[in-house]
């Protein structure tokens, strides 16, 4: 075990996987000489050379498309979209090709590709640079969607992504890059997809989060315990596709209440999917309607106080939980 930041854990995962498998190469904007916008790929160009660490033009559609074509050509590429905001420019390649080729071709074509993207608001970058689109990508069958919240999970899930024969959308919340945590140094350390993490056990309410929102959930659980004597169980989904609903349902059947926390918009969002599945599978166990704490239904503003009001906070989560205990 070593204590490291999430960005360093991600780099360790890339390094170890590149050493293990020569078919893996990296491609993206500023990932080589500059070391990556969030320094995840720093030093990898020096270690692996230009053949395996490719700087690209700013051309998201081609970057992803080349990754798809190279995967069809027998390689296992990792392409980095600098931030998830720019992935809109590559949506056709992701949705129409990466996600569908296997099914459309009757299993002839698989696309083992890892697409990494930085996600999330809270950095005063305003509306075009603050998206949380985990749920959007989870909407498409054929994609796997991974969104770690800790350095250890980041490493284990990213390494696991390179053992997958499908396209994995790997989403890293920018607020998490600097987070420190214990990370196993075993090169065989993997975190399996579709296995949620019960971060904190509790008995009164289940708080479900993913990516950045796991941390609001944890802080809210601490506040609830200290101030309200409410025992909250916190679940980190880790991956949205595949989705470990069993763990969520088991928890809800124990606590009889569920709150979903996400940085994305509530309307048409992933939280709605979770709420619906809880309703379908645990209706009779619920003592209150499932609550959702999410981004306000507006484009994210630049101004600090407005942005703060738009994004969900631990206080919002506490308030939602308390609402469930009112008569």
């Amino acid at each position, binding site marked *: 075990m070593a204590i490291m930041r999430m960005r360093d854990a991600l780099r360790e995962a890339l390094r170890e996987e590149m050493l293990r498998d020569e078919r893996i190469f990296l491609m993206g904007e500023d990932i080589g000489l500059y070391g990556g916008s969030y320094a995840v790929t720093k030093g990898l160009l020096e270690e692996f050379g230009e053949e395996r660490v490719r700087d690209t033009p700013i051309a998201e559609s081609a970057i992803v498309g080349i990754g798809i074509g*190279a995967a069809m050509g027998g*390689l296992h590429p990792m392409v980095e979209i600098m931030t998830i905001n720019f992935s809109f420019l590559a949506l056709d390649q992701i949705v129409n090709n990466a996600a569908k080729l296997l099914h459309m071709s009757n299993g002839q074509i698989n696309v083992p590709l890892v697409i990494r993207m930085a996600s999330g608001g809270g950095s005063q970058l305003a509306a075009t640079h603050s998206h949380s689109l985990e749920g959007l990508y989870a909407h498409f069958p054929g994609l796997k969607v991974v969104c770690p919240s800790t350095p250890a999970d980041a490493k284990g899930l990213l390494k696991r992504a390179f053992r997958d024969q499908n396209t994995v959308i790997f989403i890293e919340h920018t607020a998490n890059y600097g987070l420190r945590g214990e990370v196993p140094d075993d090169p065989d350390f993997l975190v399996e997809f579709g296995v949620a993490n019960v971060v904190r056990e509790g008995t009164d309410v289940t708080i479900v989060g993913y990516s950045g929102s796991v941390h609001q959930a944890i802080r809210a659980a601490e506040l609830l315990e200290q101030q309200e004597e409410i025992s909250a169980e916190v679940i980190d989904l880790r991956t949205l596709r595949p989705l470990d609903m069993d763990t969520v349902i088991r928890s809800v059947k124990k606590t009889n209440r569920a709150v979903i926390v996400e940085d994305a918009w509530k309307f048409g969002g992933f939280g709605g999917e979770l709420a619906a599945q809880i309703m379908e599978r645990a209706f009779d166990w619920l003592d209150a309607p499932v609550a959702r704490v999410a981004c306000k239904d507006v484009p994210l503003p630049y101004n600090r106080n407005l942005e703060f009001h738009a994004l969900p906070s631990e206080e919002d989560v506490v308030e939602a939980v308390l609402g469930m205990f009112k008569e």
Partner: protein
Amino acid sequence: MPLSAETLRDLHRRMLRIRLFEEEAGRLSEAGRIPGALHLYVGEEAVAAGVAAHLGPGDQVTSTHRGHGHLVAVGGDFRQMFAELFGRATGYCRGKGGSMHIADMDLGMLGANGIVGGGPPIAVGAAFSNKYRKTQNVTACFFGDGASNEGSFHEAANMAGLYRLPLIFVCENNGFGEFTRQDRHQAIRDIADRAAGYGFPGIVVDGMDAVAVYEAAGEAIARARRGEGPTLLECKTYRFFDHVGVRGMGVVYRSDDEVRAWRERDPITLLERRLAELGILDEAGAAAVREAIQAEVREAVAFAEASPFPDPAALTEDVYAS
């Protein structure tokens, strides 16, 4: 150097295979026996044949929504192709892909693509993998004049030039982006000019002349195999049938005279004339080739129509690879 009789016969056979497949597909579509949208390749056969004749094992092709010709040109199996158009379990994609998504990975045909401009980035990626694995293989990227206006084409061409990748961009300029004439969708005449913006050569060739396409493609592919990077080969050609199906939907967007003038330069007629002049294949010889392919078409259609539809269980298979 003049082409060998064998090469000329091969080109003729590839083109005729495309023509007869497409004419039958068109008839079946008009008769309502094949569902969906068919974008037929009739008129453009010299392009696919002239390029495919240079490709071998390990080489790849990316295709378009008008993709049947590319697959036939590289050796696609009529039975599996017709079965796919009929949506049957014996089709290339078990009826899940249809006309616009037909693929044969064993032949390096990486798939027709239902999205205009979807293919070029994939072609560049395939070429990247060839270079990365240090093979001598090349990728041929077919696209149309319409796709040459898509951002994805420009992004892909830029990166292919930047990395000097082993591929050729084959522009099938049939004069129309769907129903919009070229001079109404771009300000340039020669799409080959666009190659200059990406640091590789662009060549214009008569896309109705199979020999001209064969020779130009040969040079471009040899250049790619030598590691000298991509070439944009613009083939001026024409769509004898409509954008979708055979006959128009009643909207006049081109004149009968125009269609007639292009049909006078039918690529198969032109090649057959040349073969006859060279004493390689006379009228009776050409008719025999035609009849053999027609028999293959008839047999394949019968096979396809007699094939079962896929079992409902197929629906949920191959969403994810294990």
